[in-house]
């Protein structure tokens, strides 16, 4: 309407026609400009409106993830091994800093940081980045935390937060059982089984943490919130609560675990820590009561993400602390292997309990001389004495009589040479050599001289401590090979309890109970007989059976004639000790491997002794009770 008015209106006295003309031009220009604005508004609000509206919602509505607290890991008596603790963090939001330099300087002094370094980390971001907070600390020690909190009111722009952090109560205690957590790896994220994980999620990366991730993880909840430009929550729209992870109850006995680990402490303060492994099983059901690998690591150092330098140091350290020696370490079983040869000999009728063989201290086979560990020889020994005194010559002869393949058949019968299938992963299979194996492996014919070495557990034979423990448990329980069990039960956050897998039999050993009984008597002789090699395992009140072993690391000629202390550490022999008790009704099997520890008896014996002593220590007040139902349950399984 006004447009016409400009043109049609009454001519005023002072305005000439040319000016009116120009005014029309201006009016047209203005109308055109507004037309452009209207078209643009139509484009933004009607055509692109939906899309831009969604962007506005994305701006302001944020889904905040509510992390599920990770479940605890406890021992068989409910004592905490791994739990979750709050970690106290500090952030700075640049947009909210009032007196930037003053505030940052004060914060630096509270946190013992360099002020200029802190100032550099915060920087002076522009635009929306000012609203992105800069993390200064993730896990403050308690005293810094209280200092910051008590000054927070005077530090606008400084915020604190609390986030859950995995905490391993015993530090490195049972580190190889528990494993560790860490941020999910890029390769894992690409796999389908990790489809519901997001980058930055903490996930169990090894051991129980990795294997039972699905129990421990829980389910993250979410909360839709309306946030302002600074990310502050303005309104909570809705919320799905997080479901905490379930508790994993392990078969581990924390006390036994600690006692077994303490056996590897240095002899003198500041001395070198000893290397090796311990496996403690309940022979009645395969429960793993303790599992030690030394040297160990502290999984707490992984909990907040480990820097690559520390990781490299751990991974490349000479002692290889990340390797689980009890499952992945393969060692010559040495004399501990003799029980399987003895079982084979008795079962095959190659020898009877009364047969005697003569040991002059050496054995000639072909052009080679094989020595007994005892230079003077054992004289005439039967199988009981040969086991008790660990006579090598007796077993050279028995092994030759049996042949490598029949020895292997019985070793396999005790589940050697195969993975035990324990739910921890990264297990080695060991080696039980046969003719066919050598043919396959090297394309060479088996030599009978190799049978001689094999009959005392040297040569190609390799065993993991866990395999040996499973095999000795089978001797102890009368012939059942149990799959080692680590998960006793799991408890849901709602209190529901689900029992772990039933004790699982992997089969029966191909040896009659009478023969197993006579082998057990011989192993008792190892500990109690005159001349027995395992006297160090004796404990008061309980009869113990066991077998020592000394695994040669390098060929004898390098070290022959040297006293043990004179042999360089890495050339020293590995010491084995496998034991179970009480002899009448075994409840516990202990296998100790002391790397480069020298003789089995002296190196590994004290650890066996400590573990057995702890286990059989009469229950003192405050002590968790031994599982009374365990023996009944196990007895039932064994009877079946």
């Amino acid at each position, binding site marked *: 309407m006004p447009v016409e008015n400009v043109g049609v209106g009454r001519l005023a006295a002072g305005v000439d026609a040319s000016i009116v003309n120009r005014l029309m031009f201006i009016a047209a220009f203005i109308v055109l400009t507004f037309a452009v*604005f209207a078209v643009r508004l139509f484009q933004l*609000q009607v055509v692109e409106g939906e899309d831009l509206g969604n962007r*506005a919602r994305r701006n302001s509505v944020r889904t905040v993830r509510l992390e599920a607290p990770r479940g605890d890991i406890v021992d068989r008596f409910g004592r905490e091994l791994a739990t979750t603790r709050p970690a106290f963090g500090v952030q700075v939001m640049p947009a909210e800093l009032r007196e930037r330099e003053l505030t940052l300087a004060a914060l630096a002094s509270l946190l013992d940081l360099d002020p200029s370094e802190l100032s550099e980390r915060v920087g002076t971001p522009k635009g929306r980045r000012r609203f992105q907070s800069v993390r200064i600390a993730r896990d403050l020690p308690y005293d810094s935390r209280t200092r910051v909190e008590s000054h927070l009111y005077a530090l606008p722009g400084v915020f604190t937060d609390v986030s859950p952090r995995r905490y391993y109560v015993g530090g490195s205690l049972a580190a190889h059982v528990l494993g560790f957590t860490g941020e999910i790896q890029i390769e894992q994220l690409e796999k389908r089984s990790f489809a519901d994980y997001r980058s930055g999620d903490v996930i169990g990366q090894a051991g129980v943490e990795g294997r039972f991730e699905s129990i421990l993880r829980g389910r993250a909840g979410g909360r839709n919130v309306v946030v302002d430009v600074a990310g502050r929550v303005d309104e909570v729209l809705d919320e799905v609560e997080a479901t905490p992870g379930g508790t994993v109850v392990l078969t581990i006995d924390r006390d036994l675990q600690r006692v077994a680990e303490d056996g590897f402490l240095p002899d003198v303060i500041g001395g070198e820590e000893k290397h090796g492994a311990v496996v403690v099983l309940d022979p009645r059901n395969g429960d793993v009561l303790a599992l030690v690998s030394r040297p160990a690591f502290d999984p707490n150092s992984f909990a907040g993400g480990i820097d690559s330098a520390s990781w490299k140091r751990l991974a490349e350290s000479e002692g290889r602390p990340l390797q689980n020696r009890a499952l992945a370490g393969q060692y010559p079983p040495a004399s501990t292997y003799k029980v399987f040869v003895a079982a084979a000999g008795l079962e095959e009728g190659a020898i009877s309990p009364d047969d005697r063989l003569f040991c002059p201290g050496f054995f000639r086979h072909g052009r080679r001389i094989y020595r007994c560990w005892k230079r003077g020889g054992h004289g005439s020994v039967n199988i009981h004495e040969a086991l008790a005194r660990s006579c090598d010559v007796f077993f050279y002869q028995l092994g030759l009589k049996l042949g490598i393949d029949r020895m292997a058949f019985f070793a396999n019968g005790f589940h050697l040479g195969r993975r035990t299938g324990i739910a921890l992963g990264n297990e080695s299979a060991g080696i039980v050599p046969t003719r066919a194996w050598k043919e396959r492996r090297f394309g060479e014919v088996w030599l009978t001289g190799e049978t001689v070495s094999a009959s005392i557990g040297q040569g190609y034979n390799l065993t993991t401590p866990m395999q040996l423990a499973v095999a000795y448990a089978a001797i102890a329980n009368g012939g059942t090979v149990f799959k080692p069990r680590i998960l006793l039960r799991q408890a849901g956050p709602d209190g529901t309890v689900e029992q772990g897998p039933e004790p699982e039999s992997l089969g029966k050993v191909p040896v009659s109970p009478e023969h197993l009984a006579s082998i057990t008597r011989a192993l008792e002789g190892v500990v109690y007989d005159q001349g027995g090699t395992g006297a160090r395992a004796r404990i008061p009140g309980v009869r113990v059976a066991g077998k020592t072993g000394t695994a040669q690391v390098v060929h004898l000629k390098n070290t022959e004639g040297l006293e043990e202390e004179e042999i360089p550490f890495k050339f020293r022999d590995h010491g084995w000790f496998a034991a179970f008790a009480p002899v009448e009704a075994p409840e516990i099997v202990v296998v100790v491997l002391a790397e480069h520890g020298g003789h089995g008896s002296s190196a590994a014996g004290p650890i066996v002794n400590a573990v057995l002593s702890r286990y059989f220590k009469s229950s003192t007040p405050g002590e968790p009770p031994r599982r009374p139902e365990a023996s009944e349950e196990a007895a039932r399984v064994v009877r079946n």
Partner: protein
Amino acid sequence: MFGIDRRLLQNFDWMLLLLVIAIVAVGIINLASATHVDDALTGEVRRQLFSVGVGGIAMVSVLAIDYRHYERFATAALLVCIALLAATLIFAPVIRGSQSWLFGGRLQPSELAKLGLVIALARYFHRNPPGEIRRLRELARPVLITAVPVGLIVMQRDMGVALLTLLIASTYLVFTRIPWRSWIGVAVVGIAALITLWMFALAPYQQRRILDVVDPGRDPLSSGYQAIQSRIAIGSGRLLGTGYRAGTQTQLRFLPTQHTDFAFSVLAEEWGFVGSCAVLSLYLILLLWGLRVARNSKDGFGAMLAVGLVGTIFWPLAVNIGMVLGLAPVIGVPLPLFSYGGSALVTSLVGFGLLLNISMRRYVF
């Protein structure tokens, strides 16, 4: 001559006044939403209401004196404005990179200078009626009248206002008859000036802002941030708007300077296409009405002054809405009558006082 004639009241331009009141009222309602914290009136709203009062008194005062008297004081007024501009260069503190406020932030002389400039140019073009211009030298006077205040504003480092003042003055180019050959000359000089300006006078952030119009996604978190958030706010208004005080972009402060430069984005978000078109229509009617006043004025000075006053509203509006809609670079130019800001509002109201003045004295007595 100072008495209010009854005939003047009869001829009073109520339509123009109503349009102004309507826009100012919508602006204050919008300001209340943009600065909304709780249900109390915010400090900004109170200060803006105070400015409306001051502006209203100034408007009535300007109205009382026949506008033809102002022609005589045109040169003096321009000189006062120039003096004030010069004074800011000496006395004013630097606030956000520019130096443009006097008396502790209560007066922005560059706003007043627009009025002074318009009066001076109106006087010039009234006395030198449009005719063929053969030499550029003939434009020396108006160019000088424009160049001195603009130069001083540039020296205050207030590029947005300098550009605006230049645009307002350029309104009068319509009344010169420059042959097309000269336009080519002007264009060449203009482009050369723009390139020089880009390379030497514009700070990097100013260059970025211009580039952001071409591609706002270039750097969404810093320099293009305002443009993008403004577009999101406007778009999320859709057809009918999110409702008063319900725009998330506004209420959660995603919009930058939402009560001043981006006030229109707030309106567009909360009132939608319908609401923003309605307010733009008010402006369109107001501007065309201003041109009608020019056409109906009884003398050349009134016509020239009215055109200049229309320019003082149109150009900031075009630059502001263009910026808000992502069609022009982000220049800190408020929307006249609508955005928060006392000096601008008072100056605008004084300008409308002049326009009402011309309108009600349109008959020769």
